């Protein structure tokens, strides 16, 4: 087995096997940021390893000119003799087409999502202009929705915004502070962008488990990150109370609502322990995730060659 093929096998193996492991990591690994980094490490590594494998398949010689000549010669040979070129090249071209198709699809979908989010953001800012009510003296504009049901979410972007209903403002002051703190953590951590990129990748390659399952996991992880931030300033009881008060509240699609993902999991997490931060996990986990595709590729190559 050629090293190029081994890399592709490694990337595909991780793309299929990693999601289950990463989803399970949320339990034992207390730090949501470490798991979040591991997801991105895996996504990046799988894409890079696959692309590297495809490139190697097509370019076994290191000089590009020679390689182009080689390919041209091969194609001519194949056409004139009615034969297929070598197996590696067929696979390589198929892989390259797949990579290009995926990249194009991602760009188109990213553009579409960006346009929809811009429209939604503009509508929110228009509402602030029309209703003109801000409740906190912080930097971000706060849109106060005159509705008794508790509702809270944040809209990302360069000019991020918090949206809270009159129902939230009527909560006890500690819980209200927890809600605002939680949503502000989303804006500060660029969580909308993180979830949006994962969603674009999932829409571009829904048949790959790694990309398909990423958005849901990331939504939960950014909520855990924001919960942890809120706990640090407002304490566990306030965050728990806010979560319970807001569960089931409505929200637009591109927003990150307070009680958006997996409320039971998050309540459980709040109950068990205060998350202590360990830098080691934030380094080790993503590193393991990043080298996994290449490692599995190498092992596969050894097993098949031996």
């Amino acid at each position: 087995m050629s090293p190029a093929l081994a890399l592709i096998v490694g990337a595909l193996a991780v793309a299929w096997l990693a999601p289950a492991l990463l989803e399970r990591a949320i339990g034992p690994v207390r730090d949501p940021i470490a798991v979040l980094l591991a997801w991105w490490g895996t996504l990046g590594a799988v894409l890079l390893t696959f692309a590297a494998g495809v490139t190697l398949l097509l370019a076994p010689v290191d000089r590009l000119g020679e390689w182009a000549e080689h390919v041209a010669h091969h194609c001519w040979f194949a056409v004139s003799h009615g034969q297929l070129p070598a197996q590696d090249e067929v696979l390589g071209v198929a892989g390259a087409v797949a990579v290009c198709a995926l990249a194009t699809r991602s760009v188109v979908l990213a553009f579409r999502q960006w346009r929809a989010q811009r429209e939604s953001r503009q509508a929110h800012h228009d509402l602030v202009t029309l209703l003109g009510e801000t409740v906190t003296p912080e930097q971000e504009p706060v849109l106060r929705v005159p509705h008794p049901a508790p509702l809270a979410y944040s809209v990302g972007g360069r000019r991020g915004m918090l949206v809270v209903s009159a129902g939230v403002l009527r909560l006890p002051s500690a819980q209200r502070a927890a809600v605002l703190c939680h949503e502000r953590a989303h804006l500060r951590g660029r969580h909308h962008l993180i979830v949006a990129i994962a969603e674009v990748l999932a829409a571009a390659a829904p048949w790959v488990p790694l990309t398909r399952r990423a958005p849901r996991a990331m939504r939960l992880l950014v909520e855990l990150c924001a919960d942890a931030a809120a706990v640090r300033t407002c304490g566990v009881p306030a965050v728990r109370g806010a979560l319970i008060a807001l569960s089931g509240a409505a929200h637009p699609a591109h927003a990150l609502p307070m009680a958006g993902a997996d409320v039971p999991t998050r309540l459980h997490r709040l109950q068990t322990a205060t998350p202590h931060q360990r830098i080691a996990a934030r380094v080790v986990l993503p590193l393991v995730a990043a080298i996994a595709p290449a490692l599995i590729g190498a092992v596969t190559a050894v097993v098949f060659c031996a």
Partner: protein
Amino acid sequence: MSVNGLGELEAAVMDVLWQADEPLRVREVLDRLTRRTLAYTTVMTVLDNLHRKQWVQRDKTGKAYHYRPAGTREELVARTLRRMLETSLQPDVVLLHFARSASDRELAVLRQVLDERTDSQ
């Protein structure tokens, strides 16, 4: 100017137009904006933006445009909410959420609107 400075200016201009009994020219809007000293061109740009957003309508009488609001504040809010709903990936889900959380009075209003629509068809 603050982060939402443009929005504040737009709100001030809309307030002027809502309070006026007749369509206003740029100069008249500028004169009625009491809160600060603004350039004529600034007000013109703001009115232009508002026209593009379809918050104001304008008619050309003689050389100048006359501006008037394209609806009450409530109508513009409703239209903006409609836009937010349309950008949402699952408008029906959001709509259902709102309907379920509506108060009895709100539901009565909704029923009345639905009846009016059925009658007019």
